[in-house]
Each structure stands twice: as C-alpha cells, then as structure tokens.
C-alpha cells in the first residue's frame, strides 16, 4: 500500500483510538453523575456544571483545532488529530516531532514539502508517543496511594488541608500571572522602539541542510498586550461579581468565566493593533 500522511487508513486507526478516549470520558461522566444522584447531591447544580463546563471549553478547544491545523502542514491531519486529542499540546508535539525529524537528519519544514515516507512517519509517531506517556501510567501506579495519603492528611489537620489546597491553586495561578508579564521587559530592552528576537532554524535548501538566522521584530509595547488582556478579563470578572451580588443574577455564576475569557480574547484584537 502506498503511504501518504493523509491516507484514509490513518484516519480509521486514529478514529478508533479517539472513540475509546471519548468512551472513557462518557464512562466517567455517567459514573460520577450516578454517584452524585446516589449520595443526594443537588442535581440541578450538577446539570449546571455540565452546561457551564461545556461552554467554558469551546474557546480553548477551538484553539486546539488551530494547533491541529498548524501541525497538519508537516505531519498531515491524522497524526496531529490523534496527538492533540490524547495528551498533547502544540509546544510538546512540535518539539518532539522536530527532534525525531532532526534525529533522522531532516527537519519538519523539509518534510512539509510532502516527501515524508512511512518509515519517517512511524519514527516521528514513536518519539511523540513514547515521550509523553508518563502521566497515563503513573496515575494508576501512584493515584490510589496519593488519594489515601490526602485523606489521612485531612483527618490529621483539616484546616491545613484546606489551606494546602488553596496554596496549590494559587501556586499554579501565580505562575501564569508571571508568564503574562514575561515580555514586559521589551519596554526597556527595545532599541528605537523595536525589540528583535533572533532564532536559528535548520532548513533544506537544494537538498542540503543549512542553518538560517530568522529575526523577528516586535514593538517595545507588544509585551503589554497580554497584561492588558488579563486586566480586561479580570475587570470583567469583578463586574460579573458585582452584578451577581447587587442584581442577584445567580445564573451569571456559571457563565462568568467563559464570558470574561471571550471578552479578554476579543480585547486582544484592538490591543494588538494598538500596541503590537
């Protein structure tokens, strides 16, 4: 059978794997829903959780589709579809695929020309798969012990356990708050209002692998875009909180996060035109 990165058989194989992953999600949804009913939880709240989680997921999921699109130029559609439906992320998949291509003495941009062989495809798929499997097997190995440890920890000191939980959430959020500011230094590092980033990329030119220097220029104020986007989204959340309290709009509680996220993302369009 002649290989192509978009061969229909690849879609069939990937479709089967994704059907199993989908079945796992449905299984756990039904299992936890039934348990919620059995222990007498307020089912209207449970249903609201399902609706609000669905609404919240739309924008990030669309950004994952964009990632599939970006990777499809070099790897076809089937492999990125699999990789981003199971465990993956753009940064990881690109690095793993690029490392595998480089290990074979080629590069993703060269393979993007459409010359990938079945052997190269399989090599890339092996590297991408094996390097990311840790979480899938480690959770079954240590999950039960971690759950039991957390329960006995809570029995010993419930107040500290509550604080510990909040500390974990705050620790994660603080890393992302820091990340939002990571390009602010362009304000004082830029020369004549322009900040340049120089990268070295390997490319095949006329059958030979050559190193190319790529320079990207950003405006000095471009690092402020994510900061302002975060501020818009945060102010939106504060306003939602006020509306919930003052006007008793309890329904807003379930949709405030997706609404503010979309608001922040929309604000990025004029902000980028202004500061980018």
């Amino acid at each position, binding site marked *: 059978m002649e290989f192509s990165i978009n061969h229909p058989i690849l879609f069939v194989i990937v479709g089967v794997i994704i059907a199993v992953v989908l079945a796992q999600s449905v299984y756990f949804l039904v299992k936890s829903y039934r348990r919620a009913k059995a222990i007498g939880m307020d089912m209207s709240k449970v249903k609201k959780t399902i609706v609000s989680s669905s609404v919240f997921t739309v924008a990030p999921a669309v950004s994952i589709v964009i990632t599939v699109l970006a990777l499809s130029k070099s790897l076809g559609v089937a492999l990125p579809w699999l990789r981003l439906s199971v465990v993956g992320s753009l940064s990881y998949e690109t690095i793993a695929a690029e490392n595998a291509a480089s290990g074979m003495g080629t590069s993703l941009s060269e393979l993007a020309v459409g010359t990938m062989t079945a052997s190269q495809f399989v090599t890339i798929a092996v590297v991408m798969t094996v390097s990311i499997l840790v979480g899938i097997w480690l959770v079954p190995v240590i999950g039960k012990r*971690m759950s039991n440890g957390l329960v006995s920890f809570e029995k010993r000191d419930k107040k500290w356990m509550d604080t510990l939980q909040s500390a974990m959430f705050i620790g994660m959020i603080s890393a992302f708050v*820091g990340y939002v500011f990571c390009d602010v230094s362009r304000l004082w590092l830029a020369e004549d209002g322009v900040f340049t980033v120089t990268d070295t990329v390997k490319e095949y030119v006329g059958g030979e692998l050559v190193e190319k220097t790529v320079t990207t220029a950003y405006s000095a104020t471009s690092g402020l875009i994510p900061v302002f986007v975060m501020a818009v989204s945060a102010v939106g959340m504060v306003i939602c909180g006020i509306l919930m309290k003052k006007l008793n709009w309890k329904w807003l509680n379930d949709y405030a996060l997706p609404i503010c996220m979309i608001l922040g993302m929309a604000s990025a369009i004029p902000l980028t035109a202004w500061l980018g």
Partner: protein
Amino acid sequence: MKEKKTLSYMDSVHRDGTIWNMVVMTLLIMFPVVVGVIFQAVPDWAGVGKGLLATAPMYWAVGVIEVITFYPMLGAGGSYLSFVTGNISNLKLPCALNALESNEVKAQSEEGEIISTISIATSSIVTTLIIIFGVALIIPLTPLLENPVLDPAFAQLLPALFGALGVVFISKNWKIAIAPIVLMLILFVFVPALDSSMVGIMVPVGVVFTIVVSRLMYKKGMLG
C-alpha cells in the same frame, strides 16, 4: 461477589481508571506498530534513539512532576481522565477549579471529587467533539481559523483565562497569594531565559513555593 459489594466508590474509580488508562496506553503504543505493519515500514531506529534522547528525559521528568502537582487538585477521576486527554493547565484544571468554586465544594470531599470529574469529563467530550468537527471540516474552516484578524485573540487565550480565574482565587486567598505572585513577576520579568514556553515548568515551582510560604504563615497563625 462479596468483594464487589464492599468496593467503595473511590476504589472503583481507581480500578476503572487503571483499566481505561492501560487500554488507551496500549492503543497509543500500537498506533505506530499498526501503521508500520500496514505500510510495511520499520522506524529509523537511529532516528528514534536520537529523537527520544532529545525529548523523553525532559518530558518524563515534567510528566512525573505534573502528576504529583496536579493530582491533588484534579481529584482521582479527574486525574485518570486529564492525563489521557491532556491540555491540563490550560483547560482541564481551570475548568475543574471553576466548577468547584461555583458549587462551593472542596476538591478533597466526595462532592468535590464528583464535580471535578464531571467537569473534566464534560470538557474532554466537548474538546474531542470540537476537534472531530474541526478535522472533518478542515478545508472550509482553514480560512476562518487562519484569519489574521482572529490571530491575536487566540494568541491571548491564556492571559484572558487566568485574568478571570486569578481574580476569583487571589481575592479569596490574597494573604497567601502575595509572595508567589511577587516571586513569579520578578522571575518572568527579569530572567530572560523564562519565556512563554517555560510556564509549564514554572507551575510546580510556584506550587511548591506557595505551599512552603503558606505552611510558614499557617504555623505562625497568620492565616486565621
């Protein structure tokens, strides 16, 4: 029969999660094998070796740290699912946190475990379906998704997400939030090596630092 009756809900979550994860892992490993058999191709073993050497050690280490860091926040069912479906810090965990917050339940309670699992399972289903929809319609959707007008919006998804989520959690836990936020701001602003690709590695650093600071404040009675 007797054993089945005494199996607690949590025990059944671990049993079922283990079975599902092992099935998915086997299928994932089988993917390159099956493709190789169908197209009669063997991998370039030197390429596999070099590729793994350059990729695996770092991502295995990150994977171990992520499991230890995220498991207490995601709960058991949520962890089994999240570590299969991925996109944890940018989708599954914020989704679960928002659901826990809206329902005013703690992650370690049974209600929290259920709410977290329901939100992550729902999010996984919706994500998978949207990706299927996107792949099926990739040709007509490409001009829309690659529209340069929309580019900046999707580029700023994480700041938009963590602005809204952050204001809720930071306002409720402001005492323990000050030190980690100041630390992360200093590190990300003044250490050039910490660019946007490093945030995944900095999450465990932020979590460990916040736990240490919180413990000290708790011991000194500053969180009463």
